[in-house]
């Protein structure tokens, strides 16, 4: 920069005054955040604010405070802190009061760089605490103010430092008397400030700050209001449409191929991990309508779902007969977005609880619960009184609202009618009947064979005939896809097996339906939860037993019939997953567990627990102290004799001797310790002395101070270069040097 274009600049002292002003503002802003808190500290905050304002207006005030007050303030602070913690049942309010006192302590004294930074950190503490505990609009304003103040403050601190290293005198504090900059006067200072201010730059910086604030505000507003739980992981927004997983319809194309999608679809957390199911099937939806393309949700089921829709936060389930055994505890489901609008259910339940009010649909006859739309965020719900069973009750569908039901004129009693629907066309049926006959193995009549037995034989027949494969090529022909597949020897995957079994059962006269959902999952042994991936998507069948229940049949090789004994199987044969990916994934469930709450009550409980914990800790400390005091009193009150007095005296002498030895050898200890800590480096005392020598060693001092100055320099030189045995007490020397440095600065700048 050329000299003519150089702007007038603030002098070092003016910068220091500016720093004083900003520091005061910072202290005030951080103090006022406490007004947002429900803490008994309002009078303290008011007093502290008054003090800060006072020293802001009269910067020379701190110098008039007697020296002993400054000496006493630190022990007084400690005493107040200890007393406050002792008397207060909770931990947080004393902490906040301590922070207020510290802000006050730092705010009303002259500060150097270190103290400035301390002030910022203390203010930040108050701001953060207030921000976490309360969210108020006024608080946001204070936060903005604090940020702006802190930024400029840090800038000024840096400027001062740059100037000081660039030839100015260091801002070391004088032992007595106010620093020179306090005598500048506000009116002159503001005049100078107006004179040197680069308004264009200021306007630019201000508008930049405003733009950032507005931008963040806009961002805050336009981001959809998902829960923080779902906003945390970004992959939530990656669309899952391209991946395979659960589907609501089963279609059989000419070529079908499944790609294994290893992303997580669902996590299930158990309040009682011991009661986890061994071989769980997670039902999502029942596909009972057959068309030429495949299976889909029947119109009746859709209508039932739509009819039942209501905005609610809970759903009462239905208990089935005595055969189903309930599993204790609560099951919490975390369904990833993009999986399905249907909620995975392991079986019947007593209560389904959502976190918030949502439009919920349910079909009791098919045991299907769905949201109105596919959620874009993580969905969490909780099941209580889960009944793990291979059989679910066949209950009539919910009644349509009165009036409409009469108008509709329907009298459905169960979901059975759709469950007998067969592929159209004689050739299809003939082919199916042929296969059914083969399965029955000669025994005639649909009634002759129980549904369970038929299912067992059909599964066996399918397994004999078809292998399992992820990629399927159908033979060509005129018949329906599924019939062609049944007749062929082609391998297939679960959907083929489920669909084939269902049509065969229907052809044999048993009502049957396809169920889509997930099967199995991995037990995450790190986080103790089930992790179900999209590749765990599965399809199976349910066959009506004729006794009012639907029996689960998994015709896919390796599946089989639901075993009533295995229905309550809770022990896992295989080991849980402890791999690194499982560890990584368990972080997410930990996060979910923290942030997902199902009702206000649990939240309050947690807060209460936390509060009682802190209160308990405070009370425990107090009780401990009281106990110790009582013991001491009892001990003192005990009878005195010579032996006891001797013991006490001996102990005192020993302790005194120990303290004395430590005190005598403190330099030696310190030296040894420093040698231990930093081998081969310069002794810290020597380094410190060298620093002071460099600062004040070559300073020209007025004649009347020369003797004192020379004495200090000699002592410093002795500390730096002299033999250790001849050292004076380093602390005292450094204190004198600090005072000397301050005095020198005063005489240098005070002229």
């Amino acid at each position: 920069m050329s000299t003519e274009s150089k702007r007038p600049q603030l002098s070092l002292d003016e910068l220091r005054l500016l720093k004083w002003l900003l520091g005061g503002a910072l202290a005030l802003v951080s103090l006022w955040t406490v007004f947002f808190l429900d803490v008994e500290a309002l009078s303290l905050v008011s007093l502290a604010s008054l003090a800060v304002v006072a020293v802001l207006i009269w910067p020379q005030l701190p110098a008039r405070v007697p020296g002993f007050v400054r000496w006493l303030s630190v022990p007084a602070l400690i005493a107040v802190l200890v007393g406050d913690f002792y008397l207060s049942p909770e931990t947080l309010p004393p902490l906040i009061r301590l922070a207020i006192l510290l802000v006050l302590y730092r705010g009303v004294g002259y500060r150097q760089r270190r103290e400035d930074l301390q002030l910022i950190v203390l203010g930040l503490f108050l701001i953060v605490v207030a921000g976490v505990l309360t969210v108020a609009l006024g608080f946001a304003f204070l936060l903005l103010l604090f940020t702006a103040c802190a930024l400029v403050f840090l800038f000024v601190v840096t400027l001062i430092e740059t100037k000081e290293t660039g030839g100015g005198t260091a801002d070391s504090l004088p032992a007595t008397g106010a620093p020179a900059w306090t005598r500048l006067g506000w009116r002159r200072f503001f005049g100078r400030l107006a004179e040197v201010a680069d308004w264009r730059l200021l306007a630019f910086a201000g508008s930049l700050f405003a733009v950032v604030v507005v931008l963040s505000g806009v961002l805050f507003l336009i981001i959809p209001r998902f829960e923080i739980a779902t906003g945390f992981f970004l992959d939530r927004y990656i669309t899952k449409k391209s991946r395979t997983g659960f589907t609501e319809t089963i279609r059989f194309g000419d070529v079908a191929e499944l790609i294994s999608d290893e992303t997580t679809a669902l996590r299930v957390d158990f309040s009682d991990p011991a009661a986890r199911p061994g071989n769980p099937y997670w039902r999502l939806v029942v596909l009972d309508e057959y068309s030429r393309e495949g299976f889909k949700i029947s119109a009746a089921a859709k209508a039932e779902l739509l009819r039942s829709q209501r905005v609610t936060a809970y759903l009462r389930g239905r208990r089935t007969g005595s055969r189903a055994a309930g599993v204790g505890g609560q099951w919490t489901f975390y369904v990833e977005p993009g999986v399905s609008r249907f909620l995975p259910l392991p079986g019947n339940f007593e209560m389904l609880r959502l976190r918030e009010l949502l439009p919920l649909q349910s079909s009791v006859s098919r045991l299907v619960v769905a949201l109105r739309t596919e959620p874009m965020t993580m969905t969490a719900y909780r099941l209580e009184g889960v009944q793990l069973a291979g059989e679910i009750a066949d209950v009539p569908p919910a009644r349509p609202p009165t009036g409409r039901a009469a108008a509709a004129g329907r009298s459905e009693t169960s979901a059975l009618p759709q469950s007998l629907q067969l592929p159209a066309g004689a050739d299809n049926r003939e082919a199916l009947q042929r296969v059914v006959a083969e399965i029955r193995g000669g025994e005639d009549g649909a009634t002759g064979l129980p549904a369970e037995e038929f299912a067992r034989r059909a599964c066996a027949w399918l397994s004999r005939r078809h292998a399992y494969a992820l990629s399927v090529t159908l033979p060509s022909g005129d018949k329906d896809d599924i019939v062609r597949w049944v007749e062929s020897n082609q391998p297939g995957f679960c959907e083929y097996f489920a669909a084939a079994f269902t049509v065969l059962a229907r052809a044999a006269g048993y009502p049957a339906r396809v169920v889509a959902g997930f099967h199995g999952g991995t037990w995450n042994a790190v986080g103790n939860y089930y992790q179900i991936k999209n590749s765990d998507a599965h399809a199976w069948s349910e066959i009506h037993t004729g006794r009012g229940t639907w029996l689960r049949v998994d015709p896919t090789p390796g599946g089989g019939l639901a075993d009533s004994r295995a229905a309550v199987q809770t022990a896992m044969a295989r080991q849980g997953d402890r791999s690194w990916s499982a560890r990584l994934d368990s972080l997410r469930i930990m996060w979910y567990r923290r942030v997902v709450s199902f009702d206000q009550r649990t939240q309050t409980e947690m807060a209460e627990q936390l509060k009682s914990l802190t209160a308990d800790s405070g009370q425990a400390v107090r009780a401990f102290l009281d106990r110790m005091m009582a013991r001491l009193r009892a001990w003192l009150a005990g009878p005195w004799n010579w032996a006891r007095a001797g013991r006490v005296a001996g102990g005192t002498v020993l302790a005194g001797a120990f303290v004395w030895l430590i005190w005598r050898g403190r330099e030696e200890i310190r030296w040894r310790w420093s040698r231990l800590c930093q081998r081969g480096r310069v002794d810290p005392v020597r380094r410190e002395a060298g620093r002071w020598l460099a600062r004040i060693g070559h300073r020209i001092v007025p004649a009347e101070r020369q003797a004192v100055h020379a004495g200090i320099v000699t002592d410093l030189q002795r500390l730096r270069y002299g033999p250790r045995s001849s050292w004076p007490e380093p602390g005292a020397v450094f204190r004198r040097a600090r005072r000397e440095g301050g005095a020198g600065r005063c005489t240098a700048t005070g002229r």
Partner: protein
Amino acid sequence: MSDFAPAAEVSSARAALERMKTNMRQTIKGKDDVIEQTIVCLLAGGHLLIEDLPGVGKTTLAYSLARSMDCTFSRIQFTSDLLPTDVTGVSIYDEHVKEFVFKPGPVFANIVLADEINRATPKTQSALLEVMDRSKITVDGEAHTVGLPFMVVATQNPVDYEGTFPLPESQMDRFLMRLPMGYPQADDELEILRAPRLSYDAIALNPVVTRSDVLKMQALAGHVFVEESVLDYVLKIVTATRTEAEFKAGISVRGGLSLRVAAQARALVRGRDFVIPEDVQEMSGPVLTHRLTLARQTSDALEERRTVLAALRHIVAAVPVPE
């Protein structure tokens, strides 16, 4: 901590040295730094080479030093026909005792002034230099110890080279310091002009320090504490001279040792029992310059002295002072 100089002895030594300085100031006006450096040289147990034009007080300096200390003083005027025995002494056959008796030469004194040392032949010079090195003289296979303390103050004229035998480098190394005397300031010279006396014999100084005090202080100077980083500082200066292109050769190991010893002595003179880097800096000029020769030719000796000193100062300024 007997390794270090005790504080009481240091302060008493300082007082004694102050007395010496004040005493010498009566005759050597306005040359406080030269006086101090002379005393430093004495405490370090070294020998001094004073280099300057005739008539600036070299002899007076040596004489007042000797007189201040209750020590014997002798002067040898070096000429080209001076023989080694004229310096050391000679064995003469004594008729009465019927054997050779050693007659000590002028070197048997505490302070020996070797005036115009470069005028003597190398043989005579080396006779003196042997004494300087060992504080002993061997004549006819018999060793004779010279006085203790023993200090040679040699002088030479750097300008007038006619008919001289310049001291070789190896012998220059025997001197701890080389000092230029310099002209006094005008005020001081006026003071000198006012003085009635002319010859140094007329100097009437009272001894203020005993011989044993000097020996004690010499021992004390050896115990002045040198901190590791200061030793490192000395080493760095010495090694820096060895890589400096301006010099033909760097400082020898003895040169580095001399610098340390001189710094210790200066610390004692300043009343400290430890060495600070300033001692090293101040002593580097007198102790090191005469051990360095320039790689290039210069017009005259004074020019060379100036160039060497400037290069050395540059080096000392460049080596960072221990923090």
